């Protein structure tokens, strides 16, 4: 292990004194805890284990992203636990580190800042990629072999995907929405009769003549990891925002109806509104209508999506007000995955119980509708509850697959426009712009690689947690503070120092280092879903153990296409592990052999799974375990990551 810190005994004694003083002062001031989370190894993604840092309800962790970079992500603690402990069936180990409130706030703010900045930096990289394709598509004017696929969020609320775009000049639909007709009249009264049509013409003109930004590759060089290039509102963003606004204005100008399937109007008793609830939604129409009129004159660059959502909400709120039943938009994302409930291993009656709870949540939201003005957030909470209950209840009664993932807070309904409207710029100008953006993107990627190149040993999910902690501690010190001062600050504020170099870059070793050297108040092991169920009374006893110990007779596990084939679980046994591993290895060899013969048909997927299975089984021969078996869906259990 390499450790550059010069640590003579005298220095250690000095640091010990600092630590004692710090502990004494900590006892006098209010304290908080931050959690160091270690996620057990498993097959496939992060097979060597994973680590994260928890600040209250937020979990920060580094993930490997394309192309060969590492990025900081923030997740809700419940979602993080659900993914790793439930779906991926891994054990979690939570070490609670006691820190002062000041240290907690300072470190949290630093992680949050790093997260926000990296998010913008990486999004800019993606946008430049889209921009290259957009320029090429504009240059080829619809003749391109690879269409640009320009996503227009919200447009599919009003426009059919196959509908020829920009029909304002062609054949508008004959069926009109009376709600949007009234809104259009209001807009015309406020801004003038030709306001909407004039805006559409102005946008069409802008889109035809929108010139590439005059940028130099150097404009995109972030001088430090803390800065984001200022031209990050790119040509791609500008073009897409204009086009989205164009769709919104067209929907209003043509007073379009909502498309079938983008909203729900159930007549079941759970959706009936009493007089007070009805009145609240009737008043909400006015709030929406006022907001839309203001939004049409907004300075924000992207009002198009907001306009379409608000117009759609206005239509369904009006329907609720008229009918006395809650009418609401479908909030599931377009590619939400649906599951056949009969194929998910849940006890009898489970889904009906869950549906009852969702119904109760919906009723509570309706009862709690405020007497005063309903806010957008309040309406969104109601919309979400209605979506959940309807999706589950109708899935149960109609025996159709249910969307258990992918519920958003606003409707998605993205229309992917394969060919953007033609540009008046010459193909040479557009292709030149495409080439220049490519050069800018390549140079920008080099900058990102300087700061974020993923490296298995020196820049991975563990090392970056500790490096970011060190940067956060450095913020509490004078700018001239060197590594020694940062280490002393670590001792003072966290109780010790952990060097992220060898061997601490390995997730489970780092967790042990944290337990030994930071001021850890407690360490809690949260068992994986399967092991937690096995520890509960229902599955205790030898017969149940034997039944659940293999994938053929297990009731707690169903083979999931994401796992390699295996016969025995080895994560909850030690002595028979090599024996079980040998059987698993045989299964993996057979799967690999089958994969070889299937190679021309499945692009090597079976072979890849088999090879992965062979590695997972081989380590079992040496008493180690990686594979746990994963799940496509599980109901959430008791949350363990309670701050």
């Amino acid at each position: 292990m390499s450790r550059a810190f010069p640590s003579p005994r005298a220095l250690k004694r000095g640091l010990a004194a600092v630590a004692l003083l710090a502990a004494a002062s900590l006892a006098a001031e209010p304290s908080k805890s931050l959690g160091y989370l270690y996620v057990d190894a498993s097959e496939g993604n992060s097979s060597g284990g994973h680590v994260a840092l928890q600040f209250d309800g937020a979990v920060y962790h580094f993930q490997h992203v394309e192309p060969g970079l590492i990025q900081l992500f923030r997740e809700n603690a419940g979602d993080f636990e659900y993914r790793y402990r439930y779906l991926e069936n891994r054990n979690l180990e939570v070490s609670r580190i006691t820190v002062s409130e000041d240290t907690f706030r300072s470190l949290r703010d630093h992680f949050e800042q790093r997260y926000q900045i990296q998010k913008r930096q990486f999004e800019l990289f993606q946008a430049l990629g889209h921009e290259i394709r957009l320029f090429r598509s504009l240059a080829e004017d619809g003749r391109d072999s690879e269409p640009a696929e320009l996503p227009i969020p919200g447009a599919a609320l009003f426009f059919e995907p196959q509908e020829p775009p920009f029909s304002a000049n062609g054949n508008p639909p004959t069926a009109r929405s009376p709600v949007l007709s009234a809104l259009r009249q209001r807009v015309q009264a406020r801004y003038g009769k030709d306001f909407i049509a004039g805006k559409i013409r102005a946008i069409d003109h802008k889109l035809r003549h929108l010139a590439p930004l005059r940028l130099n590759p150097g404009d995109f060089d972030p001088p430090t990891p803390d800065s984001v290039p200022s031209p990050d509102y790119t040509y791609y963003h500008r073009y897409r925002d204009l086009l989205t606004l164009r769709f919104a204005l067209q929907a209003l100008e043509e007073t379009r109806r909502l498309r079938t399937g983008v909203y729900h109007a159930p007549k079941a008793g759970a959706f009936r509104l009493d007089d007070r609830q009805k009145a609240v939604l009737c008043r909400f129409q006015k709030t929406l209508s006022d907001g839309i009129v203001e939004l049409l004159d907004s300075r924000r660059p992207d009002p198009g999506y907001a306009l379409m959502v608000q117009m759609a909400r206005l239509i369904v709120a009006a329907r609720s007000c008229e009918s006395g039943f809650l009418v609401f938009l479908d909030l599931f994302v377009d590619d939400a995955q649906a599951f056949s409930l009969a194929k998910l291993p849940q006890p009898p009656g489970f889904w009906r119980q869950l549906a009852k709870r969702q119904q109760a949540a919906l009723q509570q939201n309706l009862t709690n509708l405020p007497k005063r003005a309903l806010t957008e957030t309040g309406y969104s909470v109601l919309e979400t509850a209605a979506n959940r209950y309807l999706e589950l209840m109708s899935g149960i009664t109609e025996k159709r697959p249910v969307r258990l993932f992918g519920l958003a807070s606003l409707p998605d309904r993205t229309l992917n426009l394969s060919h953007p409207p033609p540009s008046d710029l010459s193909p040479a100008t557009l292709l030149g712009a495409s080439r220049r953006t490519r050069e800018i993107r390549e140079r920008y990627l080099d900058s990102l690689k300087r700061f974020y190149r993923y490296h298995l040993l020196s820049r991975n999910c563990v090392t970056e947690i500790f490096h970011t902690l060190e940067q956060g501690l450095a913020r509490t010190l004078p700018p001239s503070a060197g590594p020694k001062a940062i280490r002393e600050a670590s001792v003072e504020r966290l109780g010790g120092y952990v060097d992220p170099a060898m061997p601490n870059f390995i997730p489970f070793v780092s967790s042990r280092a944290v337990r030994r050297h930071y001021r850890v108040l407690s360490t809690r092991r949260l068992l994986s879903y399967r092991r937690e169920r096995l520890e509960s009374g229902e599955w205790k006893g030898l017969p149940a153990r034997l039944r659940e110990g293999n994938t053929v007779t297990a009731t707690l596990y169903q083979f999931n296409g994401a796992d390699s084939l295996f016969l025995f679980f080895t994560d909850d046994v030690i002595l028979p592990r090599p024996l079980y591993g040998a059987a698993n290895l045989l299964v993996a060899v057979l799967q690999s052999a089958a994969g070889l013969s299937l190679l021309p048909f499945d692009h090597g997927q079976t072979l890849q799974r088999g090879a992965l299975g062979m590695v997972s089984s081989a380590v079992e021969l040496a008493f180690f375990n990686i594979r746990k078996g994963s799940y496509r869906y599980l109901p959430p259990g008791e949350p363990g990551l309670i701050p």
Partner: protein
Amino acid sequence: MNIHTAPISKTLPGVIAVVLTMVLSGCSFSDSSKSSSQSSASISKSISSPSRWSSESSSPDKEKKYLDEVADYTAAYVHSSNEKMNYESFQRGIAEIAAKAGIANWENNPLTYKGIGKGLKKAGVKGVEYETYQKNLSGGDYGKMNDIQKGYESRH
């Protein structure tokens, strides 16, 4: 004293096993990076996972979270923008945060401006610089400027 040197001799077999498996896949791989087009396809793709089927946030919780997220975002934006702030890009970021709270028309929501004020305070913006941000971010609207001021003066 807690300056750590891991006893590598004790951990060697585990280290070998884990290094072997890390070589296979390394750190957790982000799903969002597998399809870069998806992440920018829609500003509204702030998806709630089934972990929230049993504990959805209430409206006040969501509003508090929204205000805090706007504050964090503003502070980070100011910190990373050096001399010039790109207001268009800033506003797109606000729209993304608002979408997670179910808010489409964030300009109409006082919490947005209170969050911005709180974020400016957090970023240590003062004096003339603060007044310039306050004026530009509110578009000179008196009510919005007042909300920014309220957020700036709030304690938490």
